[in-house]
């Protein structure tokens, strides 16, 4: 049946600059200063080493469940690097590398994963939201922040992170739709790591790309090689500049891969093949960017060691964290404590002895605690 085509024809593009074989598209190569390239690499490396260390801490029962970054360092660093401190970062739960770049002390994040709420408190001057666990629910917050910044006339861009699975949630849809209507300065960074726990992308959506979902909201959408630091940076730079200039939101799909477990409670051998993982290990963003820096003679001596020391020191500070005082659980419920809640607090204070924190930062896993199944070792 012939019909009239509605203009414009839509198109989604894919951006790649430095491929996994080390081929560089010099025409597209972003102009990053040497020290910028160095600090980008350092941040990636720090993310990777911390990740490995945290998995061990979790296995030892020193922190609880967390979601490793491994494999997604370029997607995170290439994008977050384009933000100013006065811009806002809206993370989901896997952005450890990017959060550290934004100024979260490592020991604070460790406290967070050790079950201390203090670990989720951003500094007064930090323009970062804390980790959000319910998938996609942070996306409307990003739009609201951007609206508020625009309302106040502030020169602020908001960058929001989420996964491929998150694009199935209603909140993703509603947030992008509001962003489009309000034309606010948000950059939506989807880390399409191919899996939402055990669900592969093809069971997540029948859409060929995630980038094309932007068309539903009249937004520009771009797919980028998410393991290519340069490409992610270039795409994010463009989107952030556009947002800052008042030209509205963008959806960036970073095609990447979760090389590790979903969280430390997950056993990926149950749902994906070693061959698939091995294939993606060939595309490791860290190796690729390292080779690029090597060629440009920008690799610092002993960087691994410096990074490891930084982590070790942070862990020492973390382990020195005193056990939390249970009574402070009443401190941040409301601005003022209602009388019945004050009575609950008083009852706790009066109870003798004050219940000691069973699971402090340094306490080993309780013998009686339920074995979350991921606490048994898995192959990766």
């Amino acid at each position, binding site marked *: 049946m012939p019909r009239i085509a509605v203009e414009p024809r839509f198109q989604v593009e894919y951006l790649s600059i430095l491929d996994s074989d080390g081929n560089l598209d010099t025409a597209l190569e972003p102009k990053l200063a040497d020290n910028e390239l160095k600090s980008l690499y350092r941040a990636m490396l720090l993310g990777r080493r911390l990740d490995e260390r945290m998995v061990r801490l979790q296995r030892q029962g020193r922190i609880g469940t967390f979601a490793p970054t491994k494999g997604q360092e370029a997607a995170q660093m290439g994008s977050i690097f384009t933000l100013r401190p006065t811009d806002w970062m809206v993370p989901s739960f896997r952005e450890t590398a990017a959060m550290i770049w934004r100024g979260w002390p490592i020991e604070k994040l460790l406290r967070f994963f050790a079950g201390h709420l203090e670990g989720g408190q951003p500094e*007064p001057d930090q323009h970062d939201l804390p980790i959000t666990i319910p998938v996609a*629910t942070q996306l409307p917050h990003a*739009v609201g*922040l951007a609206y*508020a910044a625009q*309302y106040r006339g502030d020169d602020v861009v908001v960058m929001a992170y989420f996964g491929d699975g998150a694009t199935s949630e209603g909140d993703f849809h509603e947030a992008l739709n509001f962003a489009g209507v309000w034309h606010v300065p948000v950059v939506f960074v989807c880390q399409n790591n191919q899996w939402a726990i055990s669900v592969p992308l093809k069971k997540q959506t029948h859409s060929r790309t995630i980038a094309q979902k932007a068309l539903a909201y009249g937004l520009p959408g771009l797919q980028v090689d998410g393991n290519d630091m340069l490409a992610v940076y270039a795409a994010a730079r463009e989107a952030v500049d556009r947002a800052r200039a008042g030209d509205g939101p963008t959806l960036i799909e970073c095609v990447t891969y979760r090389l590790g477990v979903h969280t430390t409670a997950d056993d990926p051998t149950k749902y994906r093949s070693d061959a698939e993982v091995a294939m993606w290990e060939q595309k490791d963003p860290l190796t690729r960017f390292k080779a690029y820096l090597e060629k440009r003679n920008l690799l610092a001596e002993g960087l691994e060691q410096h990074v490891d020391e930084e982590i070790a020191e942070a862990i020492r500070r973390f382990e020195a964290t005193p056990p939390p005082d249970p009574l402070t659980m009443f401190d941040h419920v409301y601005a003022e404590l209602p009388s019945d809640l004050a009575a609950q607090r008083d009852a706790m204070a009066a109870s003798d002895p004050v219940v000691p924190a069973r699971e402090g930062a340094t306490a080993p896993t309780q013998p009686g605690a339920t074995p979350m199944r991921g606490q048994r070792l898995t192959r990766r």
Partner: protein
Amino acid sequence: MAKLNMVKALNQALFQEMERDGDVLVLGEDVGVDGGVFRVTDDLQRKFGSQRVIDSPLAEAAIIGTAVGMALYGLKPVCEIQFSGFAFQCFHQIENHCARYRMRSQGRFHIPIVIRMPYGGGVRALEHHSESEEQFYAHIPGLKMVVPSGPRNARALLAAAIRDPDPVIFFEAKSLYHAAKEEVPDESEVMPIGRAQVAREGDALTLIGYGAMLRVALEAADVLRDEDGVAVEVIDLLTISPLDRETLVASVRKTGRAVVVHEAPKSFGPGAEIAASIMDGAFLSLEAPIRRVTAHDVPFVGFAREKANVPDVPRVVAAVRETLAF
């Protein structure tokens, strides 16, 4: 001083608070050009512009979710959910975020948001347009849940809710919107959230109501005075949560008996907490079990049967008489 119905009184609160504080903005479906389907936001957009009075797309979760973002930035959004029956679409944003951000961020952020919703029956409405869902919010730590009963306290409580640094769910009884006018002073007033009021003093029994049920309670008290010669003390809760247990307990210590009235279904409803709290605080004074006069434990019955479902004066009178005779 002017005589205002509840719609006008609420509208005035919004005007006054928006004039007072440039961080206050209004957000919801049809709140702008249309002035809200009940006209509570009438003329606000004309006065404050479409950036401050925002006609949002049709998506409750994003209304609350974006308002959370605005609040995180320091603004004070007043959201309208068109009918309380449609707030379950944004229940996750309310429970996951409005109620928890202060705690999650250990005080770095707080959410000074107000979520207004028309609730309750009495307007011959379709499904989801006449339910009474206060219990769902009352059980969430970190939220406050307010239900005014007349134009003047509605205006004062809405002002208080807007100035409150914490998230407030604000239920407006649809059947009260045009029910009565009340003298309201020109200057803005603020009533404390978290305090119940003794609407009528008495010594025989404590009758507890709120929102549209206050009128039912007061009329029942009239009947009991006229027909039975008993003085029933009527308490207007005004705030459901945090519950003003002190006022309830003090009254029942005096009267020894209590009946609770609400439009929500009985089981696991607000009346249960009220009864349990009174038992806690006034056990030795209690001379009869606390009766609850409520809607039945049934889903929406259709407005043709509504009258038989929602508490009315005869049912309340009967419950009071039984409690007095216990």
